[in-house]
């Protein structure tokens, strides 16, 4: 069932994204809708969206090596994560609020509900934020997170990952995802990763080692580029493309 009005955005490719129900990831079994999603065109309610400026950011939000320091540097491998935010039409996406969260080097989250036995790091919170610049570029500095166990269909392990939340200029572009690290042998065993069925799509969730951006004698670097939904080109626009 659909309305026949044209949408301002390309429809989401629901076979590229993970399906709602992926039983190997047990938590989806009771939390995925059984009814088909109702396909609707966008209206101003979705083409508009919240806009965030530098006024929402704290001074060291983009630097997780510093933003929770109590009495020293956090423990772990120092890394720089950077990339570019584009839309599906390859247009740079400026002023995208990127919110990040992650476990510490031991795989422990600073969260009242995480009771994993690995220790907390008093100098690390795992909370970070930044805005993409005019060319869509972003950079975060942090610690390489550790893998950790979680209950799935029996005990399971998450590969090292960092969660990202993104706001484009339109609420229709809203995206929450996670990225992994090139070469991690746990990636192929992870039920949450494997909720994405296309290997090419999984590869898009893997940050690549970026030695050119490593800071000598300081921090390794990884590259993670992000693509948000793009506006449906009108026939006139397409002629210019």
């Amino acid at each position, binding site marked *: 069932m659909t309305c026949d009005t044209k949408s301002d955005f390309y429809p989401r490719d629901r076979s590229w994204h993970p399906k709602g129900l992926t039983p190997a990831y047990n*938590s989806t079994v*009771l939390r995925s809708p059984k009814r088909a999603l*109702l*396909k609707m065109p966008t209206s101003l309610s979705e083409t508009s969206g919240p806009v965030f400026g530098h006024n*929402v950011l704290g001074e060291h939000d983009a630097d997780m090596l510093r933003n929770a320091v109590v009495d020293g540097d956090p423990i772990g491998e120092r890394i720089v994560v950077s990339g570019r935010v584009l839309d599906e039409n390859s247009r740079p996406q400026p002023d995208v609020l990127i919110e990040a969260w992650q476990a510490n080097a031991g795989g422990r989250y600073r969260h009242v*509900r995480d009771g994993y036995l690995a220790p907390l790091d008093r100098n690390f919170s795992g909370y970070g934020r930044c805005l993409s610049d005019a060319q869509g570029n972003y950079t975060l500095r942090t610690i390489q997170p550790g893998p950790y166990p979680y209950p799935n269909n029996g005990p399971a392990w998450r590969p090292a990952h960092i969660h990202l939340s993104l706001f484009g200029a339109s609420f229709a572009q809203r995206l929450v995802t996670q990225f992994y690290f090139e070469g991690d042998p746990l990636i192929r065993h992870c039920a949450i990763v494997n909720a994405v069925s296309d290997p090419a*799509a999984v590869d*898009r969730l893997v940050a690549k080692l970026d030695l050119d951006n490593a800071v000598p004698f300081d921090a390794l670097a990884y590259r993670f580029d992000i693509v948000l939904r793009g506006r449906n080109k009108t026939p006139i626009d397409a002629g210019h493309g």
Partner: protein
Amino acid sequence: MNRRLKETPSQTAGPYVHIGLLPEAAGIEVKQHGISSSTRLGSGMPIIITGVVRDGAGEIVKDALLEIWQADGNGNFADGHRGFARCHTDFETGEFRFKTVKPGSVAWSDGSSQAPHITLMVFARGINMHLHTRIYFGDESDANASDPVLNAIADGRETLLAKPDTSSNNSYRFDVSLQGEAETVFFDI
């Protein structure tokens, strides 16, 4: 050649989503955040919307996070993020509570008007890609009757209607059901 890029695939927000999106709920103090469970819209009647999120077994989901985006009382989208709010479901009770204003009507793509509504997105462990729905108002029968989105729903339209709380002024109840008999209608917009 006009070759489209593919969108970055979604992944679940997971159980520790609060660290990144509502750090105080996780127990992390930040000096500057700017996002709360209240919108900051200048015009419109103040309202409170409370509810819970249930799973397919009827259990209350206590690790969900919800976001709303809406027009002000005149049907205009304010600058910045004043029409945006974010709330998690309480770790003990499972309840969420938004403070906002009742939105005015917003135009549909053909120029006709939509009934007052709030866009709602739901994130949680076990939700591989956020769920997108709308909160309409049960006391807007006339406007709802001609709303193009509500009228496209064959079954489950009532799941999108916030119920006015008869015991308190300007309060509404909106429960989300991820799966099951009262499953909320979710959109692919």
